[in-house]
């Protein structure tokens, strides 16, 4: 077992304590995932579990004394974020890419009027004709 912190006694003791705390937090997240009543409960618990695992990896990297393990931290964070985005889509619609339920339309949201492109084109054409007629 590589222990880079043998020569740093105080930091070594702190890291051992924090390993215990982060592990306990991961177990508590598991309890929440098992006990959760709604779907969002469990999804948030999974994301937090991934974050606690990231904390454990960082503390493990303390002991080895290298920078190599942050790649795993980055990968886990990216995957958990993408999973949260996909879960949010799944909770609202039945599916992720195309909606199985009807999409809800907001009443006072920004909307584009029909025919506005043709009207602006016609206005520009009129103004251009007026300018041309001046020089004729």
């Amino acid at each position, binding site marked *: 077992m590589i222990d880079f912190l043998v020569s740093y006694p105080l930091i070594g003791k702190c890291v051992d304590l924090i390993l215990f705390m982060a592990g306990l937090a991961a177990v508590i997240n598991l309890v929440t995932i098992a006990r959760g009543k709604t779907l969002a409960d469990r999804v948030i618990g999974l994301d937090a579990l991934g974050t606690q695992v990231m904390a454990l990896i*960082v*503390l493990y990297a*303390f002991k080895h004394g290298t920078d190599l393990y*942050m790649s795993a931290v980055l990968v886990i964070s990216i995957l958990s*974020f993408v999973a949260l985005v996909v879960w949010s889509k799944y909770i609202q619609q039945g599916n992720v890419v195309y909606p199985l339920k009807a999409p*809800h339309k907001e009443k*006072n949201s920004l909307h584009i009027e029909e025919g506005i492109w043709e009207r602006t084109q016609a206005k520009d054409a009129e103004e251009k004709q007026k300018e041309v007629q001046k020089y004729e």
Partner: protein
Amino acid sequence: MSELFHGTQGADWMFELIICLFLVVGGIFCLGGSIGLLRFPDIYCKMQALSKPVTLGIFNLIIAYILFLLYAGIGLSMKGLLAVVFLLLTIPIGSHMIIKASYRSGVPIWTESLMDQLAPLHSREKDNPGAQIRAEVRKAPEDSLAQDIHSVRVFTDEDGQHAEPEDKKKP
């Protein structure tokens, strides 16, 4: 003192103490955020209790890691800085998306909560199943303060003018 600290120069013991402080604070935040999941009554409260402290906790842990690698002479870890930036950006956004989705699907709010500022904007939509579900499920006890506040709601018509509030109760 020489047994606990590795540094022999003047202020190296202070640097080690700072690293230990960052570590301990990060650990406390991670643990406290997870305990909040068990104690809070509602999914919306649980998100508050979880996303903020856990993000800050892991932020502190990675800062301690970067400082330790600087102190031990290994070098500045760029991957650590990248991880910190990415975590600070993505965890709050992801949790907010989950909560918005669960609100639209009709997850009920805790009955003792006083304010629902998103309800008047949400209930105007006809295709929204969450508003109908929430209107049925939400029932506050008669003695609580919540009933008086929630019975007064301001709706705006399509023209943007204020309509009269419904069910205005006077004490």
